[in-house]
């Protein structure tokens, strides 16, 4: 296997080193590990719209297909062997049961011939009946732990989601806010991928806990590339 990030017809994402591994962070918000042919995506929050609908807030029921369509593009680009959905793949435990038939078919096509791992999240802590793929609370590949909530003691390199990092930058007097990867070279928090997911500012306390209060880099998602900023230069909310 050639050890390159192959994203045909587009600029490759930015290479981020994490404990020796070379990972490709894509502007769409997914992470690709060429060496393992592994694609990782965090916080899909499928069926968030229908979850709100249960309480009478009828958000458009198109978030799952919007999210799936973007994911399908990424899977077509990188053609991974392993896909890790890093938890909170469904907005709530009943989410899988509310999938529209079309969306379910799309999902199955994406899963076909791939080792698909559903990591447990706080929104979806239990395995979903009727869905293909392995269900795990965490998985270790190479030297790296993949889990939903950043929670290790830092002794081991870790990739997590859960926090939905975003960063705000002030430039020419205007503030621009984008989702981002947050990483200090040893631990990484991935951006949320779901269409209806918002973000948590990287200057929030939650990130101090992850990075022990020391400096880390926010890789902001641009339209076609990533933009790296030290987190302390980003604006708080």
């Amino acid at each position: 296997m050639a050890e390159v990030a192959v994203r045909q017809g587009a600029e490759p994402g930015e290479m981020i080193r994490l404990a020796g591994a070379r990972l490709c962070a894509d502007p769409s918000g997914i992470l690709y590990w060429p060496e393992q042919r592994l694609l990782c995506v965090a916080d899909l929050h499928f069926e968030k719209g229908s979850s709100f609908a249960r309480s009478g807030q009828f958000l458009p029921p198109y978030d799952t297909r919007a999210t799936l369509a973007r994911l399908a593009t990424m899977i077509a680009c990188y053609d991974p062997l392993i896909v890790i959905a890093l938890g909170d793949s469904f907005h709530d435990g009943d989410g899988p049961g509310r999938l529209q038939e079309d969306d379910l078919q799309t999902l199955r096509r994406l899963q076909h011939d791939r080792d698909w791992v559903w990591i447990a999240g706080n929104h979806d802590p239990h395995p979903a009946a009727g869905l293909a793929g392995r269900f795990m609370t965490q998985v270790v590949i190479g030297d790296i732990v993949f889990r939903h909530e950043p929670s290790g003691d830092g002794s081991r390199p870790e990739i997590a989601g859960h926090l939905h990092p975003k960063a705000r930058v002030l430039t020419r007097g205007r503030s621009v806010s984008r989702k981002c990867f947050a990483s200090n070279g040893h631990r990484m928090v991935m951006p949320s991928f779901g269409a209806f997911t918002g973000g948590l500012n990287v200057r929030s306390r939650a990130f101090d806990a992850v990075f022990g209060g020391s400096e880390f880099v926010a890789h902001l998602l641009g339209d076609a590339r990533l933009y790296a900023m030290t987190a302390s230069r980003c604006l708080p909310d």
Partner: protein
Amino acid sequence: MFHRWFAQRGWAPRTHQLELLTRSRAGASVLLIAPTGGGKTLAGFLPTLVELHDRGARPRKLVSTGKDVRRSDGLHTLYISPLKALAVDIARNLETPVAEMGLPIRLETRTGDTPISKRTRQRRDPPHILLTTPEQLALLLASADAPFLFGTLKRVVLDELHSLVTSKRGDLLSLGLARLFTLAPGLQTIGLSATVADPRELCRYLVSQPPDGEALADLVVATGGAEPRLTMLEPGDYFPWSGHTARHAYPAIYDLIKKHKTTLIFVNTRSQAELIFRELWDINEDSLGIALHHGSLDVAQRRKVEEAMVRGRLRAVVCTSSLDLGVDWGDVDLVVNVGAPKGASRLLQRIGRANHRLDEPSHGILVPANRFEALECRAAIDAVAEHAQDTPPLRTGALDVLAQHILGTACGKPFDADELYAEVRGAVPYVGLTRADFDGAVDFVATGGYALRAYERYAKIKQDKAGRWRVTHPRFAQQYRMNVGTIVESTMLKVRLVRSRNRSGGQTGMIGRGGRILGEVEEYFAEMLSLGDTFVFAGEILRYEAMVENEIYVSRSNASDPKVPAYAGGKFPLSTYLAARVRALLADPGQWRGLPDSVREWLDIQKWKSVVPGARELLVETFPRSGKYYLVCYPFEGRLAHQTLGMLLTRRLERSRLQPLGFVANEYALAVWGLGDVGAHIERGDVSLAQLFDEDMLGDDLEAWLAETALMKRTFRQCAVIAGLIERRFPGKEKTRRQVTISTDLVYDVLRKHQPDHILLRTARADAATGLLDIKRLGEMLSRIRGRIVHKRLEQVSPLAVPVMLEIGRETVYGEASDTLLAEAADELVREAMSGGGGG
């Protein structure tokens, strides 16, 4: 008895008051048009007072409704006012005659401030007269008590109707009225209005419209009334080219205050009000009582000013449209209108604030702040002299408001769709509502209105066995009550004074927090600012430093020429009618006699150096200036329409490879600049002005822009809130408005992609056509000027172009994709980031 009461106070009932009384007692609904000071409000209540007097005191029996026990002798008259303060004032004013004549009448107000215990009591034991607002009416109608409460209703009095009908509140009110006509057959209405362009429309608004044909309320017009005396203040030696401060005129205004008993000084924006107020006090050597009144001020503060005014303790009040409506004031003998009058009717209403007596002339003086405004003032004075009116035509009812009303109706009592459709079409704004749109709105309320029928099982309203739509859970009625109303406040940002950023090194982090708050500005204004822009606010020249959370940071600046005018020109554009008059005035040098000398001179030089456009033409001037090429055009359609035009034109120029860099718009003109010599291209014929200004720009280019513009997303958010897609607030904890913005933006993006014809997107488009993007007006302009574009290629800037050129800020406003900005920031910071940061 009523005559005696009038006589005791030395009054005689006016003809229109008696006429209204006669017609109303004969059973007709009536529209009364009278200028302020015509005893309009009392006239509106006279029929009710007389009826309740004739009827005499009734025993208030207890009656059983089956469920509980209530009082008989119910609500007789409902009074609806656009302002809750007005409802409270009117109630107070009405208590005097009621008490003096010993009438057996209970009257009460009901506003957002009314305690819950009193509200509950009012539903069980209503007063004879209830004074309230459109939102409170909607809430009352949405309760199960509505049939009991309104079953006895005889009359509705709608005050300041001309002002109510111009917004979505008017739509909501019209639907409430339609409900009342059903609940109280034989209900009469009385509308009270200032003079409008088309009284017939208001006459229709007041009665339920039959399925075929047209029903009208009677019209009573207060006659007489002295002609207002209107003049324009001579500008003196120096007349500004641009800006809205009218600083040159402050000494003259001060002299006018000294010469009059009480002067009202109207301005168009809050910041103008602040500025004038401050500067008048700077020259207030006689310590005259001069006060300030505008919408950003605390309510208690405003009431204090109003009270002092009524007691005659003030010599002048500087105010905004916050005083356009309201009860009669003390002895105002002069109204000064600073800046553009915007519309003839609006000006007349403001001037009517002086001399609240019909038989004495109101005295008004217009103070143009710049040369273009002098043209607008002249046109407005002429229009008033001709009794021309330019109030906007009645609205087409919005679908988001309809959705809100449908849920409210179901909260009151299960409804039959056919019956409700018929009822709704009785309301004038919804006369043309198609069954498909009505059903679409019902479907939206029930399950969100999505083509993908995903939410059937969560429906908010469902049809029962009899086919009636009923609310499926009481919590939806609770949701409705939290969300009722059509006013979605625009997000305000606090303006905080900080020290300027230290650039000389050392400090690389944040600007210091913790300065003084100067006031608030609308978010959209702040979004257009770039670092280093200077603007006027709270009477100071400020430099924009940063936007942090809900605040913008500014520092004091000594710039002599603030680049970005604060709220240039206010929120709404000059009326189409006045715009046409300004163009006609400009086109006819014979009429220039009525203009100040400096303005006439300016136009003469324009005629000599360039050309003065004909009344129906669009003049396009092109010229080079310090390395850039400018295109300036003069549509006179208001800043909002010009901004939209600017966005679309720059897209087209970009495609023609003319490298546009930016644009700036004011009320009268638009200037676009770039690197390509646009004038030469036009002359050579490789750029066609006809194509550049073709109406087809409202097709694909508009689509592309709508996809990304924050203005459209803001419009969508308002519709989403009104329609109830997004909750305004949750019981107990209010969601901050910025959070709401974020989520509706995501919803907008997804919906636009997956169901572009969704009812809320259609509603948002309809709003954008007349609202923030003023697309409708732009379309009418493009159609008007087709084949009438006059190009003038010049060596240098023309006199007519100077005002808009002076408004050019240092930075471009347009089209800076946020990605470009990110790239800049990243380039600046990337080395630092990659080297591991400075923190350690």
